[in-house]
Structure formats: structure tokens, C-alpha cells
């Protein structure tokens, strides 16, 4: 944390000793001036949407991912096929076209089915992020669950546990330790990809930065601040995950 502070200070100090041409113009986000402070408040205001968007999308993705992953482990070929098709199809779609498709296309489809649903930017972004990410979380679940030896399932069966109980008490607690680190990675990915929501007008961090850039015409300073905004978010997640990992014992090596 300390190093990061120094880094920030270094960059800001560049403004005072900037080149004579004055390529830096930190005044746009100078909290000591009224205009600068207004800009900062506007930019920071984007945190709310970015965080909310990311958290809801991540939860949905974790949930959908599990629903998609479980059929992959069944003996039923049809269920397995469903898993493969979903994963291969969804993860091959770039986020931006998918966002456009959900935001502009989905209401049209729904309308043709007689449903008059208006998908706003917020939910459009959430649906896109959740579905797009769920293909990856599904693969993470699958890898995690399949890394638990078959003997565990068999042992559970011999003490009378059914499928749900086996998953709940035997497999998932062990798989979770292995799943958590890559899942946290995906959450960070969601936070960053939520920037795409700016193109459909979602008032999150990136959109707000773009709007200030357009009016102030100081992209360098504003995008620098934007980068640090994401950095703070991601670091917070990382610390949270470290803590969780420690609690779950993910950092210990597995012993089976």
C-alpha cells in the first residue's frame, strides 16, 4: 500500500515540475479548486455503479456458472453436451458485441415474443457480464470439482450420502479452496470489463471519465485518475480474497 502511495505522489508531483510546454494539467482534478473538486466528485461518483454492477454480475455469474458446471460432471451425455455448447458458445463471443446484442437486440426478440421489456443500461450490462463470465466460472468449477479424487465421492456414497449431501459436505468444501483464487481472478475481470458498460450509457467510472474528458479536454490526467480508481478497487478485492483464502485454508497445499 505504501509503495502505491509513493507512486501516486510521484505522478502527481510531475505536475508541478512538468515540462515548460505544460503537457500536464492536473488542475482539472485539483481538489483545492472548486471546479477541480466538482470534477473529482463527479468521477468518484462512478464507483457506486461500477461496484454495484460488478457485485451483482459476479454473484449471478457464480450462480449460473455452478448450474452450467454440474451437468458436465453427470453421466448423462445430453447434459454434458449442454455444458459444452454453453461454454464454447458463450466464451467465444466478445464482450462488446454481446453487450450490443443484449442491449439493442434482446428487447426486439422479447417484443416479438409479446413481452414488452425495456432493458436499461444497468441491467443490460449486468446480464452481459454475468452470462459472458459464467462460461469461465463454469470451467473453474468443473476443474475444481474434478480435481477432488473420485474416492471422495465413493466414500461419501458408502456412508449413505446422496448426491446433494456429497456435494454439500464433501466435495464443495474441498473444491472451494481450489476454486476461490481463480474465482477471485474472474471477479477482478468483471470489475474491469464493466468499463464496457460505458458505451451503452451506464454512468460508471469509465463513462464519467469520458464525459469529463469531452468537456475539459484533459484525457491524460483524467484517465490516469481512472486507472487508479480501478487499481484501488482491484486491490481491495485482492485483500478481501487473501483474507478469505486464509480463512478457508486455500493457501495450504492440499493433502489428498
Amino acid at each position: 500500500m505504501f509503495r502505491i502511495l509513493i507512486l501516486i505522489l510521484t505522478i502527481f508531483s510531475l505536475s508541478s515540475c512538468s515540462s515548460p510546454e505544460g503537457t500536464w494539467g492536473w488542475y482539472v482534478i485539483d481538489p483545492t479548486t472548486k471546479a477541480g473538486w466538482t470534477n473529482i466528485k463527479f468521477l468518484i461518483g462512478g464507483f457506486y455503479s461500477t461496484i454495484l454492477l460488478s457485485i451483482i454480475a459476479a454473484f449471478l455469474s457464480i450462480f449460473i456458472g455452478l448450474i452450467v458446471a454440474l451437468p458436465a460432471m453427470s453421466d448423462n451425455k445430453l447434459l454434458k453436451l449442454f455444458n459444452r455448447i454453453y461454454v464454447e458458445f458463450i466464451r467465444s463471443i466478445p464482450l462488446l458485441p454481446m453487450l450490443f446484442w443484449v442491449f439493442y437486440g434482446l428487447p426486439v426478440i422479447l417484443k416479438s415474443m409479446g413481452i414488452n421489456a425495456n432493458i436499461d443500461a444497468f441491467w443490460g450490462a449486468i446480464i452481459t457480464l454475468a452470462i459472458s463470465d459464467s462460461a469461465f466460472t463454469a470451467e473453474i468449477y468443473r476443474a475444481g470439482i474434478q480435481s477432488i479424487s473420485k474416492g471422495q465421492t465413493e466414500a461419501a456414497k458408502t456412508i449413505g450420502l446422496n448426491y446433494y449431501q456429497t456435494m454439500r459436505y464433501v466435495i464443495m468444501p474441498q473444491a472451494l479452496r481450489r476454486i476461490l483464487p481463480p474465482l477471485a481472478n474472474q471477479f477482478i475481470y468483471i470489475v474491469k470489463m464493466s468499463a464496457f458498460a460505458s458505451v451503452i450509457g451506464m454512468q460508471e467510472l469509465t463513462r464519467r471519465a469520458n464525459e469529463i474528458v469531452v468537456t475539459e479536454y484533459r484525457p491524460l490526467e483524467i484517465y490516469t485518475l481512472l486507472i487508479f480508481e480501478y487499481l484501488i478497487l482491484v486491490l481491495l478485492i485482492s485483500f478481501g480474497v487473501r483474507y478469505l483464502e486464509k480463512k478457508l485454508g486455500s493457501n495450504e497445499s492440499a493433502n489428498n
Partner: protein
Amino acid sequence: MENTFAVEIQGLTKSFKDFRALDTIDLNIKHGEKVVICGPSGSGKSTLIRCINGLEEFDNGKILISGKPQNPAKESYVSDFHVGMVFQQFNLFPHLSVIENLKLGPMKSLGMSEKDAETRARKLLERVKIPEQALKKPNQLSGGQQQRVAIARALCMEPKLMLFDEPTSALDPEMISEVLEVIVDLAREGMTMVVVTHEMGFARKVADRIIFMDEGSIVEQNSPSMFFKNPQTARCKKFLNQILHH
């Protein structure tokens, strides 16, 4: 007892792709009987007992467990006639403590209260002579201790039949006897059991009947004394020679 037999197997056949793992096995095991199965690796011993408790599906034939057909497809098999199993690799749940390993089955599948399950688990840990290890995680125990925990975990379900799949094969030599002792005790108490093992000393001591399997078939079966004194087939003689003269 309504049924004379704990296990009845008729014409049991199973193949893995082109490999015939079990070839029309017929076998009846009486209540209270102790059967030891031996034979070279790949002879189908493990597959046979895995079929008995439904871990493995089979192609043809019939398995009756205390008169009821065994169906590997069913999700859970809590029944009045529970079949317990001890694995070569212990398969303890590494994220749970020893006592939690024991309590899981009774609490979740038998619906016992935590207190009753705890009492039962403690009693069984006494019986396998490791009461002091209750709160440790499995990986803090020696192999022999882990296998004894595995036996206690199986007994927690109060099985009427116990299956042992090479219970000492993954153990260091000095730990084999402590595990065998527990199994011998269990046999003395009258438990019906099927043990796949290469421990011939144990077989001689405990078994009512020794079965020799090779290439998916039961080649020979006899009482221990007859089995060792007078093996009938060349294959069995060869096997006994290899295993006894080392």
C-alpha cells in the same frame, strides 16, 4: 434372519470396453461368514466387491444383498442392511477432523442428532484404539491410524456387511498389523465380511472361506486349511508360491 445369505451373486458379468473384468461369477455369502478374496492384480477382486456395494455398474447377472437386488444407479443406499466399505486409499475427508469424518454419515444420512452421533463416534474411536486423535485432521495421522479411522467411519453406519478392498496395501509394513488387529476383532464379534487382501496369515486366521480369482473368474474356493494345504489348480499353486515364498 429371513435370508440365509447376506450376499447372493448369480451370473455376474462386467466388462470395461474389451476387457472382461468379471466373467459369470456365482457366489453366495452367508450371514456371519468371513470371506477372503485373493488373486493376482487385474483378476477382478476389487471390481467384484465394488459391484457388491453398488459402486460399480455391471452388465449382466444379479446381486442380492440380504434378499434385495443391488442397484448401482440408485442415488443413495441407506437401508436396513447397510454395506460398509473400507478402501485401499482410506478416502477420508481431508477437510474434516477425525470425529467429523465419523459423524457425517450418521448425522446426514441416518438423521441422528449431533450428540448421539458424537457418542457413537467416540465409542468407535475407542474400539479402533485411537480415541485421542478425535480432533486431528486425517493428514496429521499415520497411514495405519487413517485406515483405522476409515474402519470406524464405516462402522458408524452400523453395517451388517463390511467390505475391505485391500485395506493394508497402501500401508507401510510396520502399520499393517495394527489395522489387521482391528479387522480380526471385528471378525470375532461376528461381522459378515468380504476382504480382498494378500495378507495370507490374516486369511488363515480369520477366513471361513478363501476365494481365489483369476481373469475375472472364481478359480478355486476352499476353507483356509484346505486352500493352503491342497490347492487344486495350477494357477492357484503358482499364485500361492509367488505370494508365500518371498
